[in-house]
């Protein structure tokens, strides 16, 4: 099977280049990650992140034939050859397929990604109805792989100022939680020409999310709440 993989080692390369690989797959190689592991067993200099190999840890996000996705759940029989693999776009490259995710995580941290509830905790669980809990579905499943934010042109231009789809999805995850008491502060924080309003509903995020989540919808909900509290 044929692959074109972007390579870059700052120790020796002036700039990134594409390297071709033609490797015979084994009978148990089903996913793109299997292929990359096989290539790495031949060329140990190829560098990438990976861990769970089942699409829940979010390590192996990369750009595959022009579209962001997770290598571990991208089926080999569904990708066109040569498979062109590049690091996630828009973030600084550390080496090969490994990008510097500092900005991405800084934006996640900026939305205060934790439950805020300063009322004294009851002895048992805080009660939440199944309907209230269902509000978190489609939000809490985010794996922070960064496929969405690095597919977003607004994030490419302003990664330091625009929270980006992953961060905003997580912001709404706490706004939507019946146990969280900081909705107003959260909305105040996002009511900003850059933090939220750089989203121009291009919807690349929805297109690439490997977990089938919809950040654009979450962003729309945040905007609705802002309008609601303004009137």
């Amino acid at each position, binding site marked *: 099977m044929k692959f074109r993989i972007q390579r870059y080692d700052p120790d020796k390369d002036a700039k990134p280049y594409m390297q071709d690989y033609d490797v015979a797959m084994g009978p148990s190689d089903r996913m793109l990650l299997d292929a990359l592991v096989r290539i790495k067993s031949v*060329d140990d200099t190829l560098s990438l992140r990976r*861990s769970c190999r089942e699409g*829940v*840890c979010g390590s192996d996000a990369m750009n595959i034939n022009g579209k962001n996705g997770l290598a571990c759940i991208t089926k080999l029989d569904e990708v066109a050859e040569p498979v062109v693999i590049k690091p996630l776009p828009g973030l600084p490259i550390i080496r090969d397929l490994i990008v510097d995710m500092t900005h991405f995580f800084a934006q996640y*941290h900026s939305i205060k990604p934790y*439950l805020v509830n300063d009322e004294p905790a009851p002895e048992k*669980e805080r009660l939440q109805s*199944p309907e209230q809990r269902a509000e978190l579905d489609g939000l809490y499943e985010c794996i*922070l792989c960064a496929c969405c934010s690095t597919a977003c042109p607004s994030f490419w231009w302003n990664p330091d100022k625009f929270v980006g789809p992953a961060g905003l999805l997580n912001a709404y995850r706490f706004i939507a939680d019946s146990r969280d008491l900081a909705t107003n502060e959260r909305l105040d924080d996002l009511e900003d020409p850059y933090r939220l309003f750089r989203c121009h509903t291009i919807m690349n995020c929805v297109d690439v999310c490997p977990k089938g989540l919809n950040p654009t919808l979450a962003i729309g909900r945040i905007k609705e709440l802002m309008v609601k509290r303004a009137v």
Partner: protein
Amino acid sequence: MTVPVRKFDAVIVGAGGSGMRASLELAKAGLRVAVLSKVFPTRSHTVAAQGGVGAALGNMGEDSWLWHMYDTIKGSDYLGDQDAIEFMCRMAPEVVIELEHYGMPFDRNENGTIYQRPFGGHSQNFGERPVQRSCCAADRTGHAMLHTLYQRNVHARTQFFVEWMALDLIRDAEGHVLGVTALEMETGEIAIFHAKATLFATGGAGRIFHSSTNAFINTGDGLGMAARAGIPLEDMEFWQFHPTGVAGAGVLITEGVRGEGGYLLNKNGERFMERYAPTMKDLASRDVVSRAMATEIKEGRGIGEHADHVLLKLDHLGLETIEKRLPGIREIALKFANVDPVKDPIPVVPTVHYQMGGIPTNYHGEVIVPAGGNPETPVPGFYAAGECGCASIHGANRLGTNSLTDLLVMGKSAARSMIAFIAASGREHRPLPNNAADYSIGRVNRLDSQAGGEDVSEVRGEMQRSMQAHCGVFRFPDLLSAGVEKIRAVSERVKRTQIKDKSKVFNTARIKALELDNLVEVARATMVLANARQESRGAHDRADFHSRDDVNWLKHSLWYRDADRLDYKPVHLKPLSVDTFQPKARVY
């Protein structure tokens, strides 16, 4: 060579559930704590836990910590330490409720309480009938838990060192543990993390086997580091084969599928677990179900081209239940088995999943070793929690959901012990030995300069295939003794591994080679101890010693890296406050 030294009150290696539960406790106590992780915290393997966390909340009907305790002891095939088990089961509700207060998105009942599902080996009234004890967030409990713990640590401003791999434990001449050496993956630099108290929370080492539900990162780094520092490893012959790994792929399918009403079928369409466990059926404990499946396959009732797996049927649960309670399973089945479980059964096979043994600790999380006639002398400044530790809560077989319970309880418990130890240890750190980083630097230099050596992937493959073939669900004397020789040979080859990648920057070839150093220690401990234990107990099933032998083998094994030396120590049969559960025959 001088290396940078970073000083902290506490250093934690590993940012999975137990590491982050501990760091939270330490940060809340106002201590300076560093958490080192090979991966960004939410990539840790806790993320892959699916079915739930066990705690006798009693939200779905009557339950008690004493029943949970009985189930855990019986599940452990009586090898678990009953004081540690009582401690965990009593503390389970508290740590689960805390997690809810931290924001964990548990599923809910109509009355707003946490939803709980049935799980293997968990029963009401000492084995009478299944009980609903597993607190869950759909089939993504570990993911929800790990993210919640990370979020609380962001709130607590815990200092993480992300993509730092710990290399070796630092001990002084008196044996005190003073921290670790670690490699920053992005730059290739080595630094010393100097601490008053050091916690290993490095998870399991399922990657010693060829087929495993474990993530690539589960390479037993804590166990390797401990073994190299002269600490024994406990009960390493006990490895859990999870009944339902996707055939061919190894990816986990939660026991929660059977908890929700799914069941196993052989090629005749027979629900065979009824024959092996008349009361609990498909919800018998994992060693029992895995052995039953392996027996069905061995006796020709497997299915598929090579008759090498069985089927997990859940279509009768209906689309609504599957979408609500088991959405991740449907995703996995579609991706990795090419079946939609709403219509078709999932091909499954017992797959290596969890390491019951580990670094010996008590239920305070203190690492304990035989010394001066006491088999349980604490190593000052050293703690272990989660899958890498052995308290021993799981004995010879862990119950489903108890891994998440263990990591919360033991993470918190170890942190409390560390807080007390740090408070008692004064303002100053004990001085580092002069040569504190030399050993680690030597290992890395050896690797970088090795010529004409062994290929890392090849040697690792040989180790994994040997473990798989010689140390499986059923264990045979000739295969075990041959396996010991094979793994010893692999050990020799590991000393001469070679990498082509010489870059300083994010050199993953180097990381893989260093991981193999750790894996091979775990593999050797496992094979040597499995060969030595002449009985069948829990997950350890010997063809030549069919029964449990409480007279000779109701004891914990200890393996020392130095010349594969073995030792044994008694099981704690006395709980903290209740009467001993006397060993008896296990029937489900």
